[in-house]
C-alpha cells in the first residue's frame, strides 16, 4: 500500500532583504496512514516551513517552492491549483498551530470558527454544524460546550484555546493532522493534558499525525517515528525507541545528551553543543551541523551526507552522517 504522504526533494526558499534564505533543503520522507510522526528541530530547522509549504500555506512571495513533490494520497499537492488545494486543507489535512492566542480570530466566537470548516467542506446546515461543533468541543474536553460555543477566544484560557484549535483541526475528520509546536506556548501541566488529549483522540479517531516540536520529551511519549531536522535538512529519522536509544546523528546525540537527566549530578556539567545555529542565508557547504560537530570529518564540511538506513539500527532508522557515531563516541571517550 502506498504511503499516505510521500515528500520528495522538497526545497523551499525565502527572499529576504539580506539575501535568499534556504529554509528547506531537499527533504524527502514518507508517512504511512495511522502513523504518528514527531518532527524535532529548533527554530530555523525547516520543520514548520516544510509542513506549511506542502499545503500552500507559506506566503508567496517572499516564499518560493523551488522543487519537489508532495504526494498526498497519490496526488502531487504542489501541482494542484489553489482551488483544489483549498478542498484538501481543513478537509483532509487539519492543522493546529503554536500560539492559540494569535491563531484564533479574536472577533469571532469559537463556535463560528469551528463551524466554518464544517459548513465549507461538509456542507452542514447551520444547526447541524453547531451541533457537531458542540460535540467536538466536548470531544476535546471542554466542559459545558453548549454555553462556551458562543464565547470569544479571549474568554478561554491558553490550554482551552488550544483545545479549540484541535477541535478545528479535527472537525472534518482529516486524514492527516499537522500540529505545529502545538504545546510550546502552554504551561507544562497544560501541555501534559493536551498531549494526553491527543493520545486519546488518536485512539478514538485514528488520525495520522505530524507533531512538530522542539522538545524531545514531547515526542518521546507521542510519536511512532521521530524525525530530527537541522538547517533545513533531515539529520536522522526512525522509530522513536531506536533513535532515542541509539542516536546516529551527532546532533540528535548532542540534544539528548545536553538535557539534564536523572543521572546528571549537580556538580557535573551538562554536555553542551558548541557554537550557534547556522545562518540559513549563507548555510554551511556540507553537513549543516558540521561546524558545531566535534565528530565532524573533513568530508562533513564539504559534502552533504545522504539520509541512509543505519546499518545496525532498527528498520527505517536512517541518519545523514559521514561519520560513524558509535565509533566516534568511543574514540572521544564518551560512555
Amino acid at each position, binding site marked *: 500500500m502506498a504511503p499516505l504522504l510521500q515528500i520528495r526533494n522538497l526545497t523551499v526558499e525565502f527572499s529576504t532583504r539580506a539575501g535568499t534564505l534556504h529554509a528547506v533543503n531537499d527533504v524527502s520522507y514518507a508517512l504511512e496512514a495511522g502513523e504518528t510522526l514527531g518532527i524535532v528541530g529548533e527554530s530555523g530547522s525547516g520543520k514548520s516551513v516544510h509542513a506549511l509549504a506542502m499545503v500552500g500555506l507559506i*506566503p508567496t512571495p517572499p516564499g518560493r517552492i523551488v522543487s519537489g513533490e508532495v504526494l498526498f494520497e497519490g496526488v502531487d499537492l504542489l501541482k494542484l491549483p489553489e482551488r483544489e488545494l*483549498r478542498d484538501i486543507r481543513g478537509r483532509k489535512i487539519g492543522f493546529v*498551530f503554536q500560539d492559540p492566542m494569535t*491563531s*484564533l*480570530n479574536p*472577533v469571532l466566537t469559537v463556535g463560528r470558527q469551528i463551524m466554518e470548516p464544517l459548513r*465549507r467542506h461538509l456542507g452542514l446546515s447551520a444547526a447541524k454544524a453547531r451541533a457537531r461543533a458542540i460535540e467536538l468541543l466536548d470531544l476535546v474536553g471542554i466542559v459545558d460546550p453548549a454555553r462556551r460555543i458562543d464565547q*470569544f477566544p479571549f474568554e478561554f484560557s491558553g490550554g482551552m484555546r488550544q483545545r479549540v484549535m484541535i477541535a478545528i483541526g479535527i472537525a472534518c475528520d482529516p486524514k492527516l493532522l499537522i500540529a505545529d509546536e502545538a504545546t510550546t506556548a502552554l504551561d507544562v501541566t497544560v501541555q501534559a493534558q493536551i498531549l494526553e488529549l491527543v493520545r486519546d483522540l488518536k485512539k478514538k479517531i485514528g488520525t495520522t499525525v505530524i507533531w512538530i516540536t522542539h522538545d524531545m520529551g514531547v515526542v518521546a511519549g507521542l510519536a511512532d517515528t521521530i524525525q530530527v531536522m537541522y538547517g533545513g535538512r533531515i539529520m536522522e529519522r526512525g522509530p522513536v525507541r531506536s533513535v532515542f536509544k541509539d542516536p546516529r546523528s551527532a546532533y540528535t546525540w548532542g540534544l539528548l545528551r545536553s538535557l539534564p537527566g536523572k543521572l546528571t549530578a549537580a556538580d557535573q556539567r551538562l554536555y553542551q553543543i558548541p557554537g550557534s545555529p547556522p545562518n540559513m542565508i549563507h548555510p554551511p557547504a556540507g553537513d549543516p551541523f558540521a561546524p558545531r560537530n566535534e565528530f565532524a570529518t573533513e568530508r562533513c564540511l564539504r559534502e552533504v551526507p545522504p539520509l541512509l538506513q543505519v546499518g545496525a539500527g532498527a528498520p527505517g532508522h536512517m541518519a545523514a552522517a559521514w561519520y560513524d557515531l558509535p565509533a566516534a563516541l568511543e574514540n572521544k571517550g564518551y560512555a
Partner: protein
Amino acid sequence: MIRFMAGKLLEAAIAIWGVVTIVFFVSRVLGDPAVLLLPLGATDAQLEALRASLGLDQPILVQYFSSLGAMLRGDFGISFQHMRPALDVVLERMPATAILAFSALVLGVLIGAVAGTIAALNRGKLAELIVMSAALLGQATPVFWLGLMLILFFSVQLGWLPSAGSGTWWHLILPAITLAVFVSASIARLLRSSLLEILGEDYVRTARAKGLLPQTIFTWHVARNALIPVVTMIGIIAGELLGGSVVTETVFGWPGVGRLIVQAIQNQDFPVIQAGVAVVAIIFVFINLAIDLLYGVLDPRIRGER
C-alpha cells in the same frame, strides 16, 4: 459598562471645556470687534458705547466665567454681526455642513475602501502602484486647487454641474467629490497597511488552513479586523470634515459651519466663534463616543474589558 460610559462622558466634557476655553482666550487676543461693527468715521465715544453694550468692557476673567456659565445653559450670547442668538446662527448652518461631511465621508470611505483593498490584495503588482500613486496624488493636491479645477471642468467647460451654492442635490456633487478625494486617499492608505498587517496574522493562516474560500477569509477574518483602525480614522476625519472643510466651502460657496466660523473669526464675532467651535466639538466628541461603542461591537475583547 455604566462606569465606562460615565468615564467617557467625563472625558468628553473635559474635551469640550478645553476647546471652549482655548477658543475663548485665543479669540479675545484677536482684538475688539467694535471697530469693525461701526461704519467708517465712528468716534471713540461711539466705539466705547458699543463695547459697553456688548459687555466687552468687563475684565476678561469676568467675561470668561459669565460666558462659561451661560454656555452651560446653552446660551452662547447674541452674535455681534447677526444680531441674534449665536447658537441659532450656527445651528441653521449645521445641516449643510452635516450633509456635505456625510456625503464626502460616505463617498470617500467607499472609494478608499475599494482602493485600499485592491492595493493590499495586489501587493507588489501594478494595480497597487496605480492605486497608491493615486492616493498619494489625492493627498498631495491642495483642496482649493482641486475644487477650482473641478468647477472649471464640470461647470464651465461641460456645463454639467452648478459651480456654487447648495440649492439642489446637483450642488452637492462637486464639493463632496473634492472632500472625498482627500478622505479616500487617507482611508485607502490606512486600510492598505491595516489589511497587510492583518493578512500576516496567525488567524488568517488558520483560516487558510481550514480551506475556507478566499471571500470568506477576506470578509470574516481579514476585513472585520482591519476595520478597527479604519473606524478610528473615520472618527477623526469626521471631526475634520465638520469644522475643517472651510476651504471647500469657500470655493463652492457652500453655506457650512466652517466658513461661518472663519467669517466670525474675521469679524471677531466672539459669540459665533464660541458657539460654532463648541457645536463642532460636541458633535465630534459624540461621534467618537459612538465609535468607542462601535468598537465594542467590532471587537468583543473590548466589550469584555468593560
